[in-house]
């Protein structure tokens, strides 16, 4: 249940909605229990949590849909992901700065849900590519390309947040302490 909640919480960005999603997902899981054959019940449940989020919740968020669709389009396009060098000029420095938990967390919150969920499933929930393919309903190759792209997205977001923070520090503007965290894409409560 923790895995289900963790995914829901990362997808919708707040506690109340995450609880609703998980509860709804369990109801659906029972309703569609005949669709469970063999294999890993966790992956099966996570797939339902994910579907519940996308069908029930995301449609309420039309404000986010434009930028999201662009991101999604990029997933299946033939373009290679941006190279590391284009994002992080100094990967070692970037990695050491990633020890800033708050900033990393915020960057992850701000990338599109399709990429966020990929990183959460892989790095936080420790799913295999095969399990991820089953949860996301895509081939393993797509899982890998999506993860790859998600990492670049996270880095790009991280870099830009880091930049904002550097700027904030220099100019004494407190970007991260106001109600919205000063982040342009911060998650809004669904209702």
């Amino acid at each position, binding site marked *: 249940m923790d895995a289900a909640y963790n995914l829901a919480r990362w997808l919708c960005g707040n506690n109340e909605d995450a609880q609703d999603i998980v509860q709804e997902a369990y109801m659906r899981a029972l309703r569609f229990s005949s669709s469970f054959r063999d294999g890993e019940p966790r992956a099966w449940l996570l797939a339902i949590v994910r579907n519940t989020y996308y069908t029930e919740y995301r449609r309420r968020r039309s404000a986010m849909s434009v930028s999201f669709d662009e991101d999604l389009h990029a997933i299946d396009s033939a373009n290679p992901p941006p190279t590391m060098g284009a994002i992080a000029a100094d990967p070692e420095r970037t990695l050491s700065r990633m020890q800033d938990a708050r900033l990393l967390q915020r960057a992850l919150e701000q990338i599109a849900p399709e990429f966020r969920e990929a990183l959460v499933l892989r790095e936080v929930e420790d799913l295999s590519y095969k399990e991820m393919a089953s949860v996301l309903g895509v081939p393993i190759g797509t899982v*890998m390309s999506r993860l790859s792209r998600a990492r670049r997205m996270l880095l790009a977001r991280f870099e830009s947040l880091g930049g904002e923070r550097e700027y904030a520090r220099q100019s004494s503007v407190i970007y991260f302490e106001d109600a919205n965290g000063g982040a342009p894409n911060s998650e809004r409560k669904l209702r």
Partner: protein
Amino acid sequence: MDTQFTETDFDRRLGDALRQHASRHTAPPRLRRNIAAFLRVQRQEFPPERAGLLERLMRRLVPLGAGFAAASVVGIGALHYQARLGDDELLGQQIVSARIRTSMPTLPPAATDARTLRAWLSDQLSFSPAVAELSSDGYRLAAGRLEHVLGRAVASIQYSRDGHLVNVLACPLRDGGSARSFHRDGFNVVGWTDSQLQYWAVSDIDPRELSEFAVSFRRAAGQS
């Protein structure tokens, strides 16, 4: 497989950073309780051929522990879940239950003696509720029927005395059940359990009389 996407050392270190710093949110106790209660209700309703699957799923997906125990504080565990539903949802559920109830089988009053009624209820249900013969206490067996409560079939045995009705409702016991007595909307409720079933006596007679009725019922049914 596309080799351009294999994990680099940088990717692995990024993963380490995420594992270390990104929150792994854990399900709040309230959610655990709700889901445990929900699944308990469902377990009753599940078609037998798929019950094994449900058990398997539940074992894997619901961590047993605090959530399960805490959900049973109210007589039917599901009441806890119900209490969390919005008013609209609850009303909707009650309305559907009321509609289903009208199509549940009823045993005509003429056919009611304790033995017949018990046999009839056992045929209709997956359990066999006690039916006490209480005419010596002035309670006449009036009717038997199935009720629909919180999505479950429940046995209902109706007694009458001096123009007042006492209904005894029975359903399988879960998680120790409850022997709560309470008053609601002009009705008194006395609850008790035997080794397998949970019983409630519900009536508009006063609480003392209803308690005496419950004692008589249990004695006559060999429960005490």
